[in-house]
C-alpha cells in the first residue's frame, strides 16, 4: 500500500540568485533569467534525487513571495497594503488595490511551463488563495470599482489560475491558505474565518468533484525566517471550519505542534470521507534534520486517528515562502525532504504488512 507524500512548495533560492535579485531590485529583470533557469533546474534535479514521487520547482521564480507573486507589478496596486506581523517581530506587507478591474499579473501555470522542461516526476503547483488576496481592496471603496466587483473578479482570476495549472498537467494544485489561522487570530469569533472559507468555497464550487480531487488546501501558522504569524492559534478553532472547504486534499502543519495527538483527534472528528489529509511530518523552521525513523513514528501515530486510505505526508510549510528567506539552506531543505520520503516509505512497509 502507498502513502502519498508531497512537498508544500517553496525551496530556498540559491544565494547568487537572491543577491542578484536584491541587486536588481526587480524580480522580473530579464537579466536574471539565466539564474532563475539554473535555480529551477538544480531544484528539480535535487528534488528528484530525494526520491520524491511528486515535486515542485521550489517556487524559485515566484517573486516576491507565495502571496503576492500573482499581483506583483500590477499598475493598479500600491505596495502599502496591510502588514502581516510575524512572531519573530518582522512584518511582511501586502499590496493595495488602487483601481479596477482586478486582474492577475501572472498565473502560476507559467512556472509549470519552465519546470516541465526539466522535470521527470509529476509536478505540483502552489497558488495563493483568493481569501489572502481579498485583503488588497482598501478600506475606502475605490470609485467605480466596488468591493463586490472586486470579489467577483478575484474569484474569476483564481478559477482561471487553477484551471490553467490543471490543464498544463499539474499533478495537483495547492491553495495556500495560511491566513486561516490568522483570521481566527484577528477575529476569534470566527466570522472572518468563515467568510474566508465561504470565499474559497465560492471558487471551489466552480469545479467538479473530479477536479477537486486534484485541488488541495495548505494551512500552517505561516512560516517566514523560521518564524510564524499565527502558531498561537489553536487548531481546534481552525480545523472544524477548515474541513468545510470543498477541496480534496488538506496539507496540515503538524510536526511543529506541541500536541499532535490532540490535533489528530480533531482532524479525525471533522475530516470528511472524501478528503485526504497530508500531515506535516517535518518542520521547516526547525534546523534539525529529522530522521526517517522519527517521521515513520509520526506517521504511525497519525495512522491511529486518520484512516490510512485518507492519509498522506507533507512538510509543515514551504522552506522559503518569501523569496529572500535565507534562514534555511537548500541542503537542509532537501535533507528534510529526503527524510520525509524515506520515513514515509518505512511507514508504508509497516502498515502494509
Amino acid at each position: 500500500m502507498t502513502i502519498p507524500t508531497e512537498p508544500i512548495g517553496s525551496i530556498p533560492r540559491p544565494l547568487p540568485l537572491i543577491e542578484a535579485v536584491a541587486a536588481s531590485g526587480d524580480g522580473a529583470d530579464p537579466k536574471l533569467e539565466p539564474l532563475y533557469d539554473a535555480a529551477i533546474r538544480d531544484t528539480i534535479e535535487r528534488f528528484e534525487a530525494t526520491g520524491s514521487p511528486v515535486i515542485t520547482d521550489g517556487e524559485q521564480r515566484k517573486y516576491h513571495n507565495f502571496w503576492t507573486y500573482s499581483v506583483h507589478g500590477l499598475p493598479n496596486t500600491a505596495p502599502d497594503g496591510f502588514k502581516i506581523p510575524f512572531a519573530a517581530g518582522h512584518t511582511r506587507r501586502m499590496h493595495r488595490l488602487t483601481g479596477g478591474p482586478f486582474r492577475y499579473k501572472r498565473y502560476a501555470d507559467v512556472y509549470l511551463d519552465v519546470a516541465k522542461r526539466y522535470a521527470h516526476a509529476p509536478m505540483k503547483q502552489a497558488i495563493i488563495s483568493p481569501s489572502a488576496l481579498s485583503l488588497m481592496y482598501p478600506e475606502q471603496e475605490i470609485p467605480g470599482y466596488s468591493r463586490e466587483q472586486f470579489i467577483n473578479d478575484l474569484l474569476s482570476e483564481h478559477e482561471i489560475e487553477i484551471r490553467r495549472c490543471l490543464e498544463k498537467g499539474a499533478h495537483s494544485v495547492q491553495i495556500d491558505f495560511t491566513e486561516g489561522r490568522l483570521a481566527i487570530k484577528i477575529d476569534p469569533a470566527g466570522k472572518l474565518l468563515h467568510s474566508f472559507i465561504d470565499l474559497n468555497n465560492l471558487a471551489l464550487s466552480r469545479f467538479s468533484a473530479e477536479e477537486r480531487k486534484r485541488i488541495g488546501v495548505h494551512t500552517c501558522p505561516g512560516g517566514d525566517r523560521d518564524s510564524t504569524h499565527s502558531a498561537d492559534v489553536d487548531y481546534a478553532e481552525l480545523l472544524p471550519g477548515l474541513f468545510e472547504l470543498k477541496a480534496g486534499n488538506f496539507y496540515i502543519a503538524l510536526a511543529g505542534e506541541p500536541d499532535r495527538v490532540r490535533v489528530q483527534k480533531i482532524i479525525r472528528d471533522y475530516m470528511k470521507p472524501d478528503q485526504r489529509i497530508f500531515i506535516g511530518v517535518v518542520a521547516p523552521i526547525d534546523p534539525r534534520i529529522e530522521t526517517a525513523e522519527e517521521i515513520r513514528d509520526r506517521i504511525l501515530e497519525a495512522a491511529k486517528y486518520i484512516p490510512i486510505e485518507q492519509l498522506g505526508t507533507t512538510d509543515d510549510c514551504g522552506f522559503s515562502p518569501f523569496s529572500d528567506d535565507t534562514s534555511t539552506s537548500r541542503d537542509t531543505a532537501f535533507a528534510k525532504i529526503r527524510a520525509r520520503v524515506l520515513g514515509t516509505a518505512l511507514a508504508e512497509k509497516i502498515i502494509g504488512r
Partner: protein
Amino acid sequence: MADDNEEKRLRSVLLQTANTILQARQRAEEELIQAKEALERKTGELAHSLSMMRATLESTTDGILVTDAGGNVMSVNQNLVDMWQLPRENIETMQHRQLLEITGRQFKEPEKFCARIEEIYASSPPETFDLLELADGRVFERFTKIQFVEERNVGRVWSFRDITKRKRAEEELRQQREWFQVTLSSIGDAVITTDTQGKVTFLNPVGEMMTGWNLAEAFGQPLEKVFTIINEETREAARNPVEKVLREGTVVGLANHTALISKDGMETSIEDSAAPIRDAAGEISGAVMVFHDVTERRRAERAMKEADKRKDEFIATLAHELRNPLAPIRSGLEILNLAGNDSVMAETARSMMDQALNQMVRLVDDLLDASRITTGKLQLRKERVELAAVVQSVVDTSRQMIDEQGHKLTVNLPAAPILLDADPTRLAQVFSNLLNNATKYSEAGGQIALSAETAGDQVIVRVTDKGIGIPAGHLGRIFEIFAQVDTALERSQGGLGIGLSLAKGVVEMHGGTVEARSDGLGMGSEFIVRLPITGAERRPEATPDGDSKASAAAKRRILIVDDNPLGSKSTAMVLRKVGHEVATARDGIEGMENAQSFRPDVILLDIALPRLNGFDTARRIRAQPWGKNIYLIAVTGYGQDEDRRRSREAGFDYHMVKPVDFSELKKVLSDR
C-alpha cells in the same frame, strides 16, 4: 498608534470584505436554490420525458437498446427482450458486451456479429445500418445512431426491426419476377411491357432480336422509339396499340399489314396484340404487347394463293384437255353407228378413237407420273441402255408428228456407243417430251435438231428448235409443274404443262440435269440434258417377248368383276369377239357368287369394288376348293411394285394396270 490605526483599518476591511463575501455567498445560495429548483423542475420534466420516452420505446414495434458512451446498457424495451430472448431482470445494469454473449449465440458466426459491434464502438460512426441473418432464419435490420447532447457523444441508440416476413415476401416476389422473366424470355414470341407512361420496362430476347434494341438500351425509352411500325401497303407510320390500351384499358390488336422497322432498318411483317397490365386493385399499371414474325406465313399464304390459282388454272386446263380426246371418241362412236357395213368408215372411226384414247391414256399417265415424282413414288427400272437406241425409238415415235408439221429433224449422235444406266422407257419419255415440244412450238416447216456429245463422264443431249422461244422472265419457271408460256401458239397446242416438269424429275432421278435456254420470244429454244455415262458393257437388248409361245387363242371361261359397267361391258365385248366365254359381276360379293356358279378359268378382278374389295374377293376365292386353280388377274389403276406385291399376297396370278391392254391380255391368256 499607527499599528492601532492599521489594525482598525484591517478589521474594517475584513468586516467589509466579510460582508461582501456573505452577500456573495447569499447570492450564490440563492442561485443555488434557484438552480436546484430549476433542476428539480428539469428533473420533473426529465422524469416526464423519460416516462414518455419509455412509453414511446414500448409502443414501437422495433426492439430498442440504448447504451452510454462506455457501452453500458441504459435502457431497453420489451420488444428487444422478446426479439433476442434476453433475461429481463437486471438487464439495465448490464454491459452491452454481456448482452452480446446472449445475442451472439443466435448467429451461425457469432464472432462476425460481435466483431462488427466492436468496430462500431471503435470507429464511432454517426449512424450505421446492418442486415442481420439469424441462424433460425429470422432477418433483422439494425440501425444505430449516436446520441449527442450539447455536441457531446453520450451514447448510442440501437434499433432492431424484424423484417423476416418482408424478406420472405420480397424473395417470393423476386422468384415470381424471375419465373415471369424466364417464361417471357423462353416463349417464341416477342414481348414488350411498358409502364403507364408508355415507357419500356421489359423486352424479352425475341423482342430484342426483332427490334434491334437490347433491354438495357430500351429500358425507359418511349415505346414508339423501340417499336417503330408502318403500314406495309401505304408505307405510312402506324400507331402502336399500347396507346389505346393505356387509354381505354382494352385488349387491342394491330391492323393488318403491319411491318416492324428494327433499329438497323430491317423490315419484318408482324402480327401482335396488346393488353393492359392491372395491379391487385384492378388499376392499370402498364401494358404488355406480344408480337411475332409472320413473314414466312405471309409468303406461304401468297404461295398458296398462287398455287391455288395455278391449280384452278390446271384443273380448267385438264378439263379442257380431257375433253379434246373425248370429242373424237364420241364422234367415232357416232360414225360407227352410222357406218353400217362400211368397213372403211368403221376402221377410220376405230383408228380415230384409238388415237384419242391413247391421247387420254397419255394424259392420265403423265398426271400419274407427275404425282409420283412429286410424292417420291416414281420408281425407275434401270438397265444398261445405249443412248442411240433410246433416241431412235423416240424419233420413230415422233416422226409422224414431225412430218405432219413439215419440220426438218436432224439427229447427230457420236459414232461410238454411249452407254447409260437408265430406265429406257422413262428416258424415252424425256426425249420424246423435248422433241414433241420442239415440234409443237415451232411454226410449220421449222428446223429441229437433236444432238449428243460426251463431256468427261457425262453425255450432253441437246434438242434445239427455231420455234416460239421462251421469254426471259419465264425461263426460270419453265420446268415448274403447270407452267406454260402464254402465247397463242402454245395455247393452240394445248397440253397440261407438266411434260417439262416430268422430264426434269426423271432426268434428276437419273443423276442428271436439264436446262432451258432461249434468246426470247420468237428466238427458238434449246434444251440441254446432261446424264452420267456408265462404262459397263452394254447388255444385249432384251429381245421382245417374241419367245413367248405363239399360241392360238384358246377358248376360256372369263369372269369380269368390275363396278364400271361401261368398262366391264366393253372388255367383255372384246373378249367375246375373240371367242371367249365371258360373264360379269358388279361387286366382290356378286363376283364370288358368279365365280362359284360360272367356274371361270380366268377372273379379271377390279380392286376398288363395292361391298367386298378385290383383294378380299381374291382371298375368298383362293380359300374355296374350286378357286385354287382359277387364274386371277388384278385390274387396277395402280401399278407400283408395292401394288403388285399386295396383289401377289392376296392370291392374284397377274397384275394389270388400267386401261386393259388387250395385246397384253391376249398374251397372258395364251401363256396361261
